[in-house]
């Protein structure tokens, strides 16, 4: 019970962090058809911007300013980069963002150094909020949950209850028709791309001090975010939300469940040892392959349900 409760909380926090990163990407992906490789770079930039700003003006200023900077950068990238490349098709766009991710990583290395920077949790939030069976739950994690929860609410309201949201939704599903009705679809693209990057930046601001702020953070977060987006389904914020929480919980619980396929087989009366056929694989405990589970799920969902969990059209 103790382990279950603590793991549940941890899985929730990690899942919500994934959601913050993935929500922007899923909007960009579904709208523009671009798998934005530079998305995790915005996450990294958000953390580094926040670090630099917090040195001068403190964490709370950074919380607002860093995402805005990322958003402005996103708008510039879309307006002056992607829009030009767009004429040459999706593959060119994909390669463009891929190259951009490399460039951003190098620029970060050159500006802030190769090592991690001491971006710390603000003193006002650096205390244990409560403890579950002796394991402390830091206030900062609760703060992360709060921010990401608010963000989910805000995006959802913006998409469903505002005029801009309606236009975005229309451009998502029927770009030609939206354009024919006189809406400036390219501008909507810029807006979505910029907000996506800003959201990733926000995730970086609150994720950078929760994890570590180093030049490798984009590379480590990149793949799992793609999994969430594809798994959740294109254009579906809810799908993305569910997928994020699912991935967070799966990775957390995979660690604490010390079972292997052999244990399952033992229940039905089959004994497997390391010397049996496939023994090495079957006796592999779950924690050792836990980090791979999301990718296994990715393969499975593309196989059985290519549109993803809640997607409205095929990937």
């Amino acid at each position, binding site marked *: 019970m103790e382990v279950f409760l603590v793991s549940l909380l941890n899985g929730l926090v990690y899942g919500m962090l994934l959601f913050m990163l993935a929500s922007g990407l899923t909007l960009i992906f579904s709208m523009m058809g671009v798998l934005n490789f530079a998305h995790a770079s915005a996450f990294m930039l958000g953390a580094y911007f926040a670090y630099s700003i917090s040195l001068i003006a403190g964490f709370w200023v950074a919380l607002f300013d860093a995402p805005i900077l990322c958003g402005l950068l996103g708008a510039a990238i879309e307006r002056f980069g992607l829009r030009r490349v767009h004429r040459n098709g999706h593959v060119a766009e994909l390669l463009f963002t891929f190259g951009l991710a490399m460039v951003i990583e190098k620029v970060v290395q050159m500006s802030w150094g190769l090592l991690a920077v001491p971006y710390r949790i603000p003193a006002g939030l650096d205390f244990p909020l409560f403890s579950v069976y002796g394991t402390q739950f830091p206030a900062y994690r609760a703060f992360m949950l709060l921010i990401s929860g608010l963000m989910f609410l805000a995006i959802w309201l913006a998409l469903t209850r505002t005029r801009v949201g309606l236009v975005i939704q229309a451009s998502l599903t029927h770009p030609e028709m939206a354009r024919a009705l006189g809406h400036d679809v390219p501008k909507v693209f810029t807006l979505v791309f910029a907000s996506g990057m800003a959201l990733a930046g926000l995730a970086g601001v609150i994720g950078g001090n929760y994890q570590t702020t*180093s030049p490798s953070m984009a590379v*480590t977060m990149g793949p799992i975010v793609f999994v969430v987006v594809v798994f959740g389904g294109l254009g579906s914020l809810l799908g993305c939300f569910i997928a994020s929480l699912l991935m967070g919980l799966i*990775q957390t619980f995979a660690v604490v469940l010390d079972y292997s396929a052999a244990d399952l087989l033992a229940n039905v009366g089959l004994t497997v040892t390391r010397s049996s056929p496939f023994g090495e694989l079957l006796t592999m405990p779950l924690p050792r392959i836990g980090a791979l589970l999301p990718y296994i799920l990715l393969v499975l969902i593309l196989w059985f349900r290519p549109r993803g969990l809640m997607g409205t059209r095929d990937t």
Partner: protein
Amino acid sequence: MKSIYRAALAALAMILSVAVTPAGAQGTIKMAYTDPLSGAFAQVGDSNLKMWSYLIDYINAKGGAAGRKFELVPFDNKSQPADALLALKSATDQNMPFIVQCSGSNIAAALIEAIDKHNARNPDNRIIYINCGAVATELTNEKCSFWHFRFDLNVAQKAEVLVRALPKNITKVYLINQDYLFGQSVQRDVKTFLKQVRPDVQIVGDELIPLGKIQDFSPYITKVKASGAQALLSGNWGPDINLLLKAGFDAGVDLRYYTFYAHLAGGPTTIGPAGDGKVYSVMPNSENLPVEKGLKEADEFIQGFHKANPGMKFDFSSVGFRTILEYLQEAINKTGSVDPTKIAFALEGMKRKDLFNYDTMMRKEDHQVMMEYMVGQLSKGNKYDSEGTGLGWKVSAVVEAKDLMQPTTCMMKRPAK
């Protein structure tokens, strides 16, 4: 514009002069140095290079060897064995007597194999491989070579240091290691020495994690806590150790962390004030070691590095490189030449006191250095802190060379003298 041309010309002249300087008797004693100087691990080579150049200046001020000065010639290997072999090729083409490499046992294995072949085929143009930090134990066991000299402890020895430094009141430990060759050998060796040296210690958990894949270690900490362990032993490096420690501090679990690599550049920065007194690391030396031992000269020598390199945030952790240069100096002076074969024979079994006045020895049987190693505790209130964090490495235990003489399986093949 003119000045640019002039600068370009000067640069060109410099390149040419380097290229045409004969590597023969009257020049410097050239040591090729190959490590990652670009790419993800550039930091490693970069900081090593700074430490090397400080030490080479020192040894040259002490007269170099046989009236000649040492010179380090860097080659970037981008952490790739193939590039390290290119560096070796350049080194042998220029008749350099030594090649130095510190990072990556896979690269070390490739170098050993290539050097064995090269030296057998070219008796007039041999080269010695100075290993300053590739620590896979087999490099001085089944893969051992006459031309390879390792000046750092191997994984098994480091594991023994860690086990010997474990305080008596710790009887329940949890192991977490990375799921690849290095992590698995740490896991195996720590278990072996726990059985030998500390049979009273119980291993309450033993885990392998995928290398560099985990962003949140909280679930692991939950497990460690549930197991009732008092100490967490880990060979993890990079993000895998930093994030693990962070998760532990966040959960407020009462644990001590015994690590292999928390002291590497960037470690103290990511650990931060929350780690005060909780983190231990197996390390060659700490800047506080001479302070605690009352060695004024060694203290000044180490701080001299920071004076020579202001603004460098990392610790001067590789004072052991000085021991390497002193061994080479003595061997060259003894043989009166830079003939690699003679030097290699002279290095075998050589004994010296190091900077901290401990005994060191280059063991003849396997060319594994025997030296002291320490376990540091990251804590406040030390004379020297790390990376401006206010936390420094306090000496928790020093294990001397005589306690680390592990048996070897090396069957050394020696050339004719």
